[in-house]
């Protein structure tokens, strides 16, 4: 059967949802970034387990630790909300509930991400 899609629609490859490629790429790029960032983060936590308040603060005060933590927060929250969006799209089929949940997740990710970055900067510049 001859395809009913126009040649332009076919070459753009976006399908009926009109989007998706940007989401797919962002999920992969943040995933690649998160591998070294999380290995560093977990190793850092392991090495400083049991550190008291002053030591923990002094550690995050160092520019390299603050920068890596901010990068981790940005990549992590972005990756997380992209993943949660797919889960919601898979299981919530009532349109208003699906859209509302996705908006809620995205806003929460931005809000929590901003709070985390503020916390890191506050320690870094103190």
């Amino acid at each position, binding site marked *: 059967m001859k395809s009913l899609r126009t040649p332009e629609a076919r070459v753009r490859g976006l399908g009926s949802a009109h989007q998706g490629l940007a989401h797919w790429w962002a999920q992969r790029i943040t995933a690649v970034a998160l591998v070294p960032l999380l290995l560093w983060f977990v190793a850092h936590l392991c090495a400083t*387990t*049991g550190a008291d308040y002053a030591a923990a603060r002094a550690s995050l005060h160092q520019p390299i630790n603050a920068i890596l933590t901010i990068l981790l927060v940005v990549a992590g929250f972005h990756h997380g909300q992209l993943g949660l969006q797919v889960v919601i799209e898979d299981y919530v089929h009532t349109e208003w509930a699906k859209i509302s949940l996705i908006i809620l997740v995205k806003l929460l990710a931005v809000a929590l991400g901003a709070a985390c970055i503020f916390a*890191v900067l506050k320690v870094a510049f103190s």
Partner: protein
Amino acid sequence: MTTGERPLSPHLQVYRWQITMVLSILHRATGLALAFGTLLLARWLLALASGPEAYGPVQMWNASFLGRLFLFGWTWSLFYHMCNGIRHLAWDSGFGFEIPTFYRTGWTVVIASVVLTLIAWFWGYASLGAFG
């Protein structure tokens, strides 16, 4: 959208359980766990920024039995999702689609996630001075 009368495609319960399917489900489950785990990260960073009065109780909870159990689960979820995520990136690049490779990389992911989790926790306890 009406979904009530329409036939649905077969879901999980009609399939025989097998490793490939379990690993796929675990990828999503650990992803969800990690998403909720970001709340712990946010609480920890905010407590650290606000002062010792806020930081103390958070660290007390982290050191409690329930806290450690939670963090242990979080560590494994993280390493599992990371290792299996690398497996996904290989598929995205066009590698690893042969059936024997599926099984081999799948078991590799399981073993690697457990080993990495144990290394992290031994390291953490060593930092605490638990091994003298």
